């Protein structure tokens, strides 16, 4: 935060509004016991984060967040919700003071850590100075491609992206193995609930 004086510029106001809304949505998600509302709010949360990424000029990340976070995650969580109850069980009292203390301590530590963080857009910040600068300088000559993000993702860090694809593949296989019985062949009579009264 050193050397960063917030002024009332339009960008600052947009960032402030987006972050405030993010916080409000997060609080609403915590307070709601209605799982359908929570799923919808998490979609809104992702959409707001995507808008915030756009304001940070990270359009590729924003695109992914909008497509994956706000789009398909919401759908998959709705699908998961259909397999369980519509409402969250009321929380059990007792552990709250310990959890609150832990959250406050960790939160304070995180706030303390932000003091050491370089200012946004600082040219000498580690993220911009070392390897990032190399990517920006070399992409034009080594991988003549307008979108540096794609060059980094698919070529400089192609091995990482292969790992990510492997992770997605593994997730699909795991879901098939866990939920596959019956449903893959079109059967719809598989039920997770052993006694129906507990669900109601």
């Amino acid at each position, binding site marked *: 935060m050193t050397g960063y004086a917030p002024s009332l510029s339009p960008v600052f106001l947009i960032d402030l509004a987006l972050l405030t809304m993010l916080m409000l949505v997060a609080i609403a998600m915590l307070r709601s016991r209605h799982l359908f509302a929570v799923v919808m709010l998490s979609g809104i949360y992702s959409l707001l984060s995507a808008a915030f990424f756009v304001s940070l000029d990270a359009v590729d990340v924003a695109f992914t967040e909008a497509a994956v976070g706000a789009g398909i995650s919401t759908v998959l969580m709705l699908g998961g919700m259909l397999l369980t109850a519509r409402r969250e069980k009321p929380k059990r009292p007792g552990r709250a003071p310990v959890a609150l203390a832990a959250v406050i301590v960790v939160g304070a530590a995180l706030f303390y850590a932000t003091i050491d963080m370089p200012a946004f857009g600082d040219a000498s910040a580690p993220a911009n100075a070392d390897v990032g600068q190399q990517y920006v300088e070399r992409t034009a000559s080594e991988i003549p491609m307008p979108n540096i993000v794609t060059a980094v993702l698919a070529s400089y860090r192609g091995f990482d992206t292969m790992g990510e*694809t492997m992770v997605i593949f593994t997730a699909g296989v795991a879901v098939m193995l866990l939920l596959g019985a019956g449903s893959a062949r079109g059967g719809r009579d598989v039920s997770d609930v052993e006694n129906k009264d507990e669900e109601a």
Partner: protein
Amino acid sequence: MDHLILRVTSKLLFAPIILFALYVQFHGDYGPGGGFQAGVIFAVAFILHAFCFGLEETRKVLPQKALTIAMVIGFLLYSGTGLVTMLLGANFLDYDALVPNSTHHAGQHYGIIIVELGVGTAVAATMLTIFYHFTGREPDIDQEDW
């Protein structure tokens, strides 16, 4: 499944969504986008179809068997590109080996396009697989159950 407006709208939207997915897939070199986003958008088109026509209809259009094969093909496209570059005598995923002696790194372009296609195929197939398995498990819920 008697929602006429939803069905007509989804029919109108289906082709543009697929087209947009292909645009995001193959325009990733020039603008924001790439295999991950394109795969998700592609899957969303079929999820919309499933919402409006029922999962059974979507399963007829795109059976799970095809998705399982597409998942494997997507990943093999990626790792296979790496193996090909190794067989051509370069490092794993060093795309320059695909078009040797190119003055403008054409190999990088080919390699990235193939690899992104692999990512897109794998992601689209996996997302639809997860969707099929989650929603295909329980009977349709009643309207008043919401």
